[in-house]
């Protein structure tokens, strides 16, 4: 089962993980990633951040990513919770939790989901700094991170 949520509210990682692996004794590993708001980005002090998304497409994109991860690591499960709206430094932004029989699959699935989310899911961050408001630029390193999962990739991560 795939679980995907986009919400303004904060999340509690313990509650989320407990729900994800409830009643499934086949799970032997849980990997979690939490993205948080930094107070410094590219030399500027970040006072606040606004997260915009594309309602309707976002959920579909996240479902598709989670589905790909489940296909790639059979028996694994994926939870994605992504926040939108106004966030402050220290706030949690995103949670990706993956379960599997063994740790290798759980770690890989978690990294896979984040690498795809960074480049495929329609979210945009706008930072408020002492110099005003600015949309965050996408990073080429994120595209490279996603590309390492391609079957033809020489690095072959997760292959």
């Amino acid at each position, binding site marked *: 089962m795939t679980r995907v949520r986009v919400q303004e509210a904060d999340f509690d990682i313990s509650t989320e993980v407990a729900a994800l692996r409830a009643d499934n004794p086949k799970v032997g590993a849980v990997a979690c990633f939490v993205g948080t708001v930094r107070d410094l980005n590219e030399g500027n002090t970040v006072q606040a951040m606004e997260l915009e*998304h*594309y309602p309707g497409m976002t959920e579909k994109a996240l479902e598709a990513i989670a589905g790909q991860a489940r296909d790639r690591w059979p028996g694994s499960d994926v939870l994605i919770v992504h926040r939108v709206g106004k966030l402050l430094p220290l706030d949690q932004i995103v949670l990706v939790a993956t379960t599997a029989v063994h740790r290798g699959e759980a770690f890989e699935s978690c990294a896979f989901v984040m690498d795809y989310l960074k480049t*495929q899911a*329609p979210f*945009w961050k706008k930072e408020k700094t002492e110099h005003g408001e600015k*949309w965050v*630029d*996408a990073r080429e390193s994120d595209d490279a991170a996603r590309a390492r999962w391609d079957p033809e990739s020489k690095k072959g991560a997760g292959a």
Partner: protein
Amino acid sequence: MKVELRFFAGVREALGVANESVEVPDGVASVGDVRAWLRTRGGAWAETLAEGRSLRMACNHEMTDPSRRITDGCEVAFFPPVTGG
């Protein structure tokens, strides 16, 4: 053909519009054609949707390349490269 346009983030701000229903002229058959047709409005449209600009496109909630054929009533979105996570 009718198309529902959606714009997000920096693109939405530059154009000053979030969504718009348009009737596209004959010959506008793909997502890339829609982008080119919108550029003919000039001003911010020509600049923001210019060929060299790094833009992402979606059709009916799926990320797509410019060659994707549009259909009557479809939703076409233009936005900057995504920055979530």
